[in-house]
């Protein structure tokens, strides 16, 4: 396949306030004659619409700005533009202009201008072939732009670094820079962006270099679409040529031919002669791949007859024409191209390495027509060039392989480091997770331990409390039992005493009945013993009654008091007894001690009234309100002065009994107006005692 590759490098892009874009386009034509043989670099400069526009601006106007303006930053910008203009035509002049720009920028502290100057110096170094210096200046420019946040200059510097690496054959590095430039370019405001189509085109060309034609096709298509959108006809032709080359490399020759057809139309329409001729040649190559030799000749003729065709292109085309005529057995038609080619090589000795296939096809032609010596001569030339190319290509390939090996080694090392780093990160992350999980588990375990401890503590305190309560119950029960036994013994004793007292009464009564006792003293004595014993028995029975009941109701107390009053009535008929009790109290209960003390106090009070007051009426009232029970025993007798008279045993006993059961004792008496004994019992005391 006779195919020629062409790719364009944008090495500098610039915006100004007038949105002028200067594009310097390197055209590097890599001619592959059947087999890749050598690279020839051609520098082609052409401009897009805007470039064409800028080209019309005279350098004189820039000189005028430099000489007239007093603004240093404007002067630096103008100097940089002018220097860029001369970079490709007069490197020395460009260098001088850049030096002047540097001095003014440093003096006036114009950072942007200085940054621009550094970038332009890098371009100058790259153009003059001092690649290391170019890389240094581009790196400096990148650092400056990043430091000062000149994002458009940053994009340009990265793009230019990509160009440097491309020139050195570091395609992966170059691709990385181009992709970086593309990424940052996307983030810039629209008026500061460089053309995306250019970025895509460069990336596509790099992929072509890496023989990743599908990927290259994708980017060339993107570039073509953008150029179509911007109506950049000349650049569209270039993109279509690149797309065609990709299709041809992917053995889709028909698709390539279709693309070339469109490309030719557009190149013709836009006046892009360079790409028109390249597409014609590539079209011819594609037709030869399809064995359409006759049709291919027409395209080669178009190139060969065009005065704008470069000598290198012509050599390739002549070779392709000889090959096509050979295939068609039109040897006579092929002969003139041999002469034309030889003349061209003679005039351009530097094209020798590009003429390998030309000599090959010329040799074939002469063998075919039977001119063996000439055939031999050209064949020898072909072999000589092939050897030269091979040695040259071998050294290139070795260097290339070395570079690739080193790159791959570094990439591998980088990948290993990355993997190691990722592994470490993953490990650290995993450790963190494990640590967090352990912490969480620890918290839970501590919580559970605390809960168990709390439960155990509660259990212990509960057991202790329960033990204390049970001990208290046991102690009280024991005491109760002891008390009960004591009470039982007391009851037995009292029963015996009762029986003995009854025996005494019976004996005294028998004596009195059996003997006629004339002695009054003796009779009185017996009578005293009898009545005393009877009274004692009554008292004993009362006490036994109280002791046999745990609780006494007021109703029972009432019955006792009434019984006592009845007996008193029998003794003294002159006294009228009145007894009243509150109906609400009837069912109220009290402990036997309280009941007994109340009973004894009432009994004592009535007894005293009968004995000492000379009263005709004795009243007993038991009333109750919310807080207390009031018991009053009153008489209408002689009364006494409680202040002056001494309290007898009876009154003291009564007071003591009432105070023992938390009551309040009161005696109200005046001479000749009777006596009233009252005592108050708090209701709650009565209730509590129940």
């Amino acid at each position, binding site marked *: 396949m006779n195919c020629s590759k062409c790719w364009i490098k944008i090495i500098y892009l610039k915006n100004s306030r007038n949105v002028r874009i200067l594009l310097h386009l390197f055209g590097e034509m890599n001619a592959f004659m059947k087999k890749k043989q050598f690279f020839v670099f051609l520098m082609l400069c052409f401009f897009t619409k805007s470039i064409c526009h800028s080209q019309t601006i005279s350098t004189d106007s820039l000189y005028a700005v430099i000489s007239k303006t007093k603004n240093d930053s404007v002067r630096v910008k103008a100097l940089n533009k002018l220097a860029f203009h001369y970079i490709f035509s007069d490197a020395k002049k460009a260098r001088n202009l850049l030096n002047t720009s540097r001095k003014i920028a440093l003096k006036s502290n114009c950072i942007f201008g200085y940054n621009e100057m550094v970038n332009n110096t890098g371009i100058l170094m790259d153009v003059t072939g001092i690649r290391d210096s170019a890389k240094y200046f581009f790196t400096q420019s990148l650092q400056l732009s990043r430091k000062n946040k000149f994002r458009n200059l940053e994009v340009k510097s990265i793009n230019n670094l990509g160009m440097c690496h491309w020139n050195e054959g570091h395609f992966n590095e170059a691709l990385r820079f181009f992709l970086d430039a593309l990424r940052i370019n996307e983030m810039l405001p629209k008026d500061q962006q460089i053309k995306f189509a250019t970025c895509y085109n460069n990336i596509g060309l790099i992929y072509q270099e890496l023989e990743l034609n599908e990927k290259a096709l994708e980017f060339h298509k993107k570039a073509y679409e953008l150029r179509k959108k911007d109506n950049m006809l000349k650049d569209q032709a270039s993109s279509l040529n690149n797309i065609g080359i990709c299709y041809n490399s992917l053995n889709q020759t028909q698709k390539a031919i279709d693309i070339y057809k469109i490309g030719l139309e557009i190149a013709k329409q836009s006046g892009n002669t360079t790409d028109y001729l390249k597409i014609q040649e590539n079209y011819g190559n594609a037709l030869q791949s399809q064995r359409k030799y006759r049709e291919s000749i027409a395209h080669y003729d178009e190139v060969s007859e065009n005065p704008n065709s470069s000598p290198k292109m012509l050599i390739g085309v002549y070779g392709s024409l000889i090959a096509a005529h050979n295939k068609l057995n039109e040897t006579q038609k092929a002969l003139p191209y041999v002469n034309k080619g030889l003349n061209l090589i003679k005039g351009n000795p530097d094209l020798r390495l590009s003429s390998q296939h030309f000599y090959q096809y010329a040799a074939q032609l002469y063998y075919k027509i039977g001119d063996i010596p000439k055939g031999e001569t050209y064949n020898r030339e072909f072999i000589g060039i092939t050897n030269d190319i091979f040695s040259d290509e071998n050294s290139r390939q070795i260097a290339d392989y070395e570079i690739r090996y080193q790159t791959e080694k570094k990439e591998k090392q980088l990948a290993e480091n990355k993997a190691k780093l990722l592994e470490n990160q993953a490990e650290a992350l995993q450790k963190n997770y494990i640590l967090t999980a352990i912490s969480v588990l620890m918290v*839970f375990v501590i919580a559970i331990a605390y809960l168990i401890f709390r439960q155990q503590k509660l259990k212990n305190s509960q057991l202790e409390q329960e033990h204390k*309560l049970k001990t208290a119950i046991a102690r009280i029960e024991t005491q109760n039992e002891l008390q009960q036994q004591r009470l039982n013994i007391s009851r037995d004793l009292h029963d015996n005493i009762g029986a003995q007292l009854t025996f005494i009464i019976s004996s005294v009564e028998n004596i009195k009945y059996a003997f006629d006792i004339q002695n009054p003293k003796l009779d009185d004595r017996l009578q005293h013993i009898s009545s005393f014993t009877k009274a004692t028995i009554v008292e004993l029975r009362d006490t036994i009654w109280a002791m046999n009941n745990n609780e006494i109701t007021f109703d029972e107390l009432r019955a006792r008091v009434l019984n006592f009053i009845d007996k008193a009535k029998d003794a003294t008929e002159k006294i009228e007894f009145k007894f009243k009790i509150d109906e609400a109290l009837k069912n109220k209960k009290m402990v036997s001690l309280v009941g007994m003390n109340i009973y004894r106090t009432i009994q004592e009070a009535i007894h005293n009234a009968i004995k000492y007051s000379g009263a005709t009426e004795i009243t007993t009232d038991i009333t109750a309100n919310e807080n207390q029970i009031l018991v009053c025993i009153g008489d209408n007798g002689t009364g006494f002065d409680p202040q002056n008279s001494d309290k007898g045993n009876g009154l003291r006993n009564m007071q003591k009994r009432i105070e023992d059961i938390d009551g309040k004792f009161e005696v109200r008496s005046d001479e000749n107006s009777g006596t009233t004994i009252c005592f108050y019992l708090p209701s709650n005391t009565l209730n509590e005692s129940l």
Partner: protein
Amino acid sequence: MAFLISTTMIMILIAVISALVAAIVYLNVRFYKEKKMFKVKVETLQQIIVEISQKQNGQLGQIKLSDELHKKMKSVNAILSDDVFKLNYELFEMLDQNNLLKKQS
């Protein structure tokens, strides 16, 4: 593999945490339940103590009455003894006046 391990670990972790949470909930519930049960038990015991204390108070009252009666009986005993002594004395005096006492040989 790593994903599988991490997934398994997460599952185990979730299971362990769930079990621990369940244990915490169970322990808390049991704690409050036991507290409640103990409260009921203590209330019952306290009620018993109140009741037997009341009984004891009643008994104390009865004992007090018994003690009082005991004192009373002591005084009654003294009075009756005195009365009986005096009766005897008077009887002997009367017998002596009537020369009815036996002469010792």
